[in-house]
């Protein structure tokens, strides 16, 4: 068994493809001989609501959910959702954020305002932010957003690039592999 151990939460808006990101991460952890548990959200909240996926990697993982204040990484597909999940991060945890803003219904109808600077609640944390959607479109598909974010995350995790590529290849349809690998490379290049 590997000594690698970390807790991670992935958040976003239903329909953005967060489940593929956790599937790739799970596959990668398993291939690197790590214990891993993933907790997903299916059903009602997928219809444009807030979604959260928990990924726990390590030998002694029991609960499938990450405790509040215990996440080493927060991967957010959307700015407001990053703010909503900020409390999950450890003091020295890292946030990987797509800066895209998607208005929720209360904002759409004018009943609430989208926060001017939603990421301010992450002050004090290391925040890697990018227009991941723009990079995904550059790579050939907005659906590759999840791979840009995983590319950014990959620089922080102790897994080799080849292992990432194999996990991605095992989880995405063959015809989208080159676009997805390109998106992954673009994300990876953003992080020093």
């Amino acid at each position, binding site marked *: 068994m590997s000594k690698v151990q970390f807790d991670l939460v992935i958040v976003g808006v239903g329909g953005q493809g967060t489940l593929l990101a956790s599937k790739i991460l799970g596959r990668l952890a398993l291939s690197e001989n790590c214990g891993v548990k993933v907790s997903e959200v299916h*059903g009602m909240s997928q219809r444009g609501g807030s979604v959260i996926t928990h990924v726990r990697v390590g030998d002694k993982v029991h609960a*499938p959910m990450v405790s509040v204040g215990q996440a080493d990484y927060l991967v957010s597909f959307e700015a407001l*959702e990053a703010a*909503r999940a900020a409390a999950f991060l450890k003091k020295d945890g890292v946030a990987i954020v797509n800066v895209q803003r998607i208005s929720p219904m209360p904002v759409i109808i004018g009943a*609430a305002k989208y926060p001017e600077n939603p990421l301010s609640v992450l002050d004090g944390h290391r925040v890697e932010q990018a227009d991941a959607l723009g990079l995904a479109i550059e790579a050939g598909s907005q659906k590759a957003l999840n791979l840009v974010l995983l590319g950014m995350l990959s620089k922080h995790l102790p897994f080799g690039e080849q292992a990432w590529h194999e996990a991605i290849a095992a989880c995405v349809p063959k015809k989208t592999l080159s676009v997805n690998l390109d998106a992954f490379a673009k994300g990876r290049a953003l992080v020093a």
Partner: protein
Amino acid sequence: MDEKMITADVFTANSIDEKLMLGNEAVAQGAWEAGVRVVTSYPGTPSTEITEVIAHFPEINVQWAPNEKVACEVAFGASLGGARSMTCMKHVGVNVAADPIFTAAYTGVNGGMVIVVADDPAMHSSQNEQDSRYYARAAHIPMLEPSDSRECAAFAKLAFQMSEELDTPIFLRLTTRIAHARSVTPVGERTEAALKPYQKDMMKNVMMPAMAKKRHLHVEQRETFLKEAANRMPINVVKMRETSVGIITSGACYEYVRDALPYASTLKLGMVYPLPMKLIREFASKVERLIVVEELEGLMEKDIAAAGIAVEGKKYTGIQGELSVEKLKNVLNGEPMPEIHTQELPGRPPVLCPGCPHRGVFYTLNKLNMRVMGDIGCYTLAALPPLSAIDACLCMGASIGMASGMERAQGKAFSKSTVAVLGDSTFIHSGITSLVDAVYNQESITVIILDNRITGMTGHQQNPATGFDIHHQPAPQLNLEKLAESCGVTDVRIVDPFDLKAMEKAVREAAANETVSVIIARRPCALLDKTVHPSCRIEGCKNCGACMKLTCPAIERAEGGVRINPALCIGCGMCVQVCPFKAIKSGEDA
């Protein structure tokens, strides 16, 4: 009954690989390995994926049923016919299937029969928080509860073995955090279970009073036997650590306990009914404090207390929602609950998708100021602001009965401004008999069937009205309009819900007449229809807000007017119809 068959170690079988599997996938894998031949279910979160995964195994006869009762009866018939069979449902599905389940406990089985039930503590996607363990007690059916995917597969296999050995259906209980969590699962080969011969046996299979009295004795004997054998079942595991506190728990709660109180001694129950009381008494005698950690009802705690053993539990954990590592650290260790401040952030509730055909119906019902008896499906989301278009929602198919009841209470004049609204799959599930009732009892209600050609909320499962089966192969298609007519409905209309004028006309006329009316609002789910229409455009918006009443996620308040988000708009054109200034143009006209 052979105790060795029940107390064998379920984890010793040789695996050939290991995979990261959802609990639901692992149940399917375990059932396949156990040689299951017939699986039939009605979809319901969080149980749906079990049957979807089963559909990939060519050795298994698998189909969607119109509801859980039918599914359970078909599974029972398959068992009677000698096959290992399984049916999977969400917690409220057991209410629908309860009738055959309670008596199948008397008849017992021929081929092993497993009933998988997935509870939803915290109601991630459900209308109540009922605890299925009550059904195990009430029907005297043994219930297994796995705590991760590895156990999901292993317990599924054990359940078939127990079913045949004990001559009873077996419940396999999951909760959302087990069904929808992935963990590493050893996978093995399929062991073909031979089809058992069928033999006519009136005393066992015809439940009339004289025979049922004899079979009830069997139920009692079987339970007495299992209560004793349970003390030696390897899936009920004692692990002694510190003796200051001992915790009895099962399922997802076991995992929370191990993270929150790693020092505590544990008795992990793989079988949550019946309980191994000798084992519990022995465990209790070795620890200073005995605590039961269980979600929802305090069932195990009550049984243990009733056996005269000092025990605590619900006074710490309560009966609401899910437990978690944080909550257990808080209530059992006195650690502060970590705080989350998100109140000042705008919420993000789930919404009807852009281009959802249901939107046209609810827009119209709001415009006509109708009372709406709602039902279970994506469209229940129309109850939330800003649509706020649904008055009541109870259970699958209840909308029609509720509308009839309103009419009986308030009279026919009142009923003219009340409608029942339910989906195609929900209507087939349990709305048909209520329609028969309304016609038979000469109500004048209006029923709107939202026929989006699929079972939507649970993730696009086929149903009898779609014309396809679980394998997406063509199947005889139920004709909803002919069905309504044959129930005696004389006013049946089919409307495209994107055509708002036609929709309004249909609702006005149907509500006004003195007979039962059925409006079939027919248009495929927006996620099903892959036709790409160019998005709509706004030119010269007068900021009147008429289009906002559609509550489409693609139409957004902006400086001095509204904006259409081209990334979300699918060009359904409903907003073009509602703009009084013709400022919204269809993308097709560009």
